[in-house]
């Protein structure tokens, strides 16, 4: 299934367990090949000159050589063209890695000194262990309780820093393509037990995953837990569903654009909701007063995620049916709650949710078409 241009290298590669892992490895192998080529070329030239032009008598003075414009141009332009190609190929993979599909299964990740905590929408919670179904796109929505951590699964070729801050969730995605157990590492130095902040991801086939899901979690789904938090914390007294409250109704807002009092329009995504809980005065919905207190220190990161899951679950989110397979690289390009043809993809990198330029034009399609290593 996986074509290795340099078969002998396979022991030097981690398992290719995500949809984009083979692409990363193809580029890697191309770079290894280019490196070997240039190293051999230059080492051979040096060795040849070293022997052929060795000093034969102590008073020999070789004739000076002026230099050559042709050679200088050649070894400026040729490496430049080769590196342009590497740049474009690397950027293409990067765009793919950071163009978050919106038909993905959401897994909520919290990093803290020194453990990984995971929540599944169905309610399961895990520490330093993560169970995932094979063949599904997974979106990791990540926050940290303290310092910067970095969520790294080498077998997926996936890594992203999780930076503290009330207004940011960091999001990455991967599609596991292989069942098995793979390492989870923290890749950003985070203090004493940085090297102990490791875990395992277990990728299972769909039936095993369903069995696993039904195995635990007596406390209900994330949204259920969020609903009871919504009561306990008193959110419900203001954010009433009958539009009689002093605060905006939350039904159906998830994924939709909201108008702020300063005229700005903001998509009510995970990062926005988290910011609204932790620093409510940062963005005020048009027509409302800035009266909400901060819940900083009163809710844990996991509880915020449960609240988000609850808000997501209330109100009828319009279902989107992006046509699958419109793009290579298995990226779907519609924003939730919108017409897929009219809306560009959402690219999330950390705090910034970026709306990409219009679809195919700015997408990898623009990059070299002959690039090997497309999926399959």
């Amino acid at each position, binding site marked *: 299934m996986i074509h290795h241009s340099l078969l002998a290298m396979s022991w030097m590669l981690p398992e290719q367990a995500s949809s984009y892992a083979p692409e990363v490895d193809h580029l890697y192998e191309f770079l290894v090949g280019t*490196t070997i080529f240039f190293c051999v070329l230059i080492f051979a030239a040096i060795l040849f000159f*070293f022997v052929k032009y060795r000093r034969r008598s102590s008073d020999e003075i070789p004739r*000076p050589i002026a230099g050559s414009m042709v050679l200088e141009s050649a070894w*400026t332009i040729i490496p430049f063209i080769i590196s342009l190609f590497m740049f474009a190929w690397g950027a293409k993979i990067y765009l793919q890695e950071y163009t978050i599909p919106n038909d993905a299964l959401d897994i909520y990740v919290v990093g803290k000194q020194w453990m990984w905590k995971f929540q599944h929408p169905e309610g399961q919670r895990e520490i330093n262990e993560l169970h995932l179904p094979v063949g599904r796109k997974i979106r990791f929505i990540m926050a940290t309780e*303290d*310092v910067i951590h970095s969520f790294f699964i*080498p077998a997926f070729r996936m*890594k992203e820093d999780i930076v503290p801050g009330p207004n940011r969730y960091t999001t990455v995605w991967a599609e596991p393509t292989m069942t098995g157990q793979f390492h989870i590492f923290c890749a950003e130095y985070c203090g004493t037990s940085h090297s102990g902040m*490791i875990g395992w991801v277990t990728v299972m086939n769909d039936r095993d995953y369903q069995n696993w899901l039904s195995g635990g979690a007596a406390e209900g789904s994330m949204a259920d837990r969020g609903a009871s938090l919504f009561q306990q914390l008193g959110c419900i007294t203001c954010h009433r569903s009958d539009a009689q409250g002093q605060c905006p109704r939350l039904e159906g807002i998830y994924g939709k654009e909201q108008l702020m009092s300063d005229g700005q329009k903001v998509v009510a995504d995970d990062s926005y909701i988290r910011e609204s809980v932790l620093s409510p005065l940062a963005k005020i919905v048009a027509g409302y007063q800035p009266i909400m207190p901060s819940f900083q220190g009163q809710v844990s990161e996991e509880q915020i995620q449960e609240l988000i899951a609850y808000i997501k679950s209330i109100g009828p989110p319009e279902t989107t049916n992006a046509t699958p397979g419109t793009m290579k690289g298995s990226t779907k390009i519609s924003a939730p709650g919108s017409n897929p043809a009219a809306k560009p993809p959402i690219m999330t990198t950390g705090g910034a949710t970026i709306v990409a330029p219009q679809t195919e034009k700015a997408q990898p399609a623009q990059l070299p078409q002959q690039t090997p290593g497309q999926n399959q």
Partner: protein
Amino acid sequence: MSMTPLTATAGRLTSEGEPLNYLNNGHGLKSWLLTKDHKRIALLYLFSVSFFFIIGGIFALLIRINLLSPEGLFNPDTYNRIFTAHGIIMVFLFLVPAVPAVLGNFLLPIMIGAKDLAFPKINLLSWYCYVVAGIFLTVALIAGGIDTGWTFYTPYSTSYSNSNVLLAGVGIFIAGFSSILTGINFIVTVHTMRAPGMTWFRLPLFIWAHYATALVIMLGTPVLAITLSLMALERVAHVGIFDPAMGGDPVLFQHMFWFYSHPAVYIMVLPAMGVVSELIANLARKNIFGYKFVAMSSLAIAVFGFLVWGHHLFVSTQSIYLGIIFSFLSYAVAIPSAIKVFNWTATLFKGSISYDTPMIYGLGFIGLFLIGGMTGLFVAALGIDVHVTDTYFVIAHFHYVMVGGSLMGFLGGMHLWWGKITGRMYPEYWARAAMVIQFVGFNLTFFPQFILGYLGMPRRYAAYPPEFQVLHVLSTAGATILGLGMLITIIYFIWSLKNGERAPANPWGASGLEWRTSSPPPTENFLETPVVTWEAYEFAPIETMDVLGYPGDPGKPSQPVPAEHGTED
């Protein structure tokens, strides 16, 4: 090779009847600690950077010993302090000052035919800054250590670490001023103190490289000082610049830190590139192929080096479009380095290649720097960097550039100019043996780390999964061999001070003004101001390259002048 008639300096003898030179012109501690002679200050620097290099090297060996077993030998807190100490000492107290402050200080005025640097007192002040910085950092290490890594990322460094972050920050701040003062001195000296006839394009490439380095130091180091000050302010007073809870941004720290620290890579490697041009040209007795391209590529690296810092932040939640721009610029900065490698290789063509140690170091540099540079193309590729950043791949990459590049360049230069500096030659046999041992040890240490990194081994791990052990053990074995090679070099250098052969003025038949004065040179470098009438790297039979200002030499060029060249000043 003819011995320089040192006794010919009649009337300029010490009371012991020795020829007068910068080493015996004044005795006692005071004559050294208050010296304004750039050559003596270079030696002060040599002692101090060597001291810290040995300390940093011991920490490197402790890292490798810890990683022999998957569980790690030391507890994690100790290990975190060890790798931080290794990084801080090697970067700020060895790599940044090593080549410029030792070789640059010693050679820059001599190579351009000047008596000293433009500001001799500032030069001495720069060494005192270095010493004070060294004291701060040593105290920080002894009094409990620092556990942030040399990168001091916030909020760990500002709100979480219980180690001596402030002391270390102050130390690095002061070390920064040491480099800034050296940088100012170099720039002013090159502009104003070149000897008659020493036009810009007659400058040795060593000078061009140091000039470019000085520019980077002057423009970059103040930003480091600002960044560390803000970090200290944040740690002490919680002003909120980097604290997200107060509207600050931890990633801002990374931008500011790398705005200095990426150009700092070029501060570390550009001077070594300058050394390599001298090694290759002088030991092949050949003018550097494409002199102007090599000179200009130093300036290009200095300029582009300031535009690529964001490639350290590809997974730091920086905008992906910024990431794409920084990736492109990073490829652009690779080109001038490639130009240098090709030109050095072409210089060997039809040369007269000596097999003496400086040439072997020069070739070793090219080999290791080539691998370091080529793997830079991997980490500049966005899709690959996501996987390999913060792993051992990056560790291996920058050690190939920093150790394979800067350290090999520094050692090569020390061998080329050892006779000039000390008046004694090093033992050739042992030097070649040590170089080969270092080369083998280096590759065995760091090559396995490329593989480890791609397999996913994260950096700064005190313990690791057992499947990585074989490669770690290989790496530790390599580090032991590398350490042995370094030890041999240190021993024979010290041995040669008493027992080495006396160095002639020009042991290599090299070109360049520093070979036209005695070894070691007199305090004022030249007994009379040289007039330069030859091009850079113009080689002539050694008998005709007289020592300037000595009897029998009227100070005139011994070679017929090939063409008319006006001076620029």
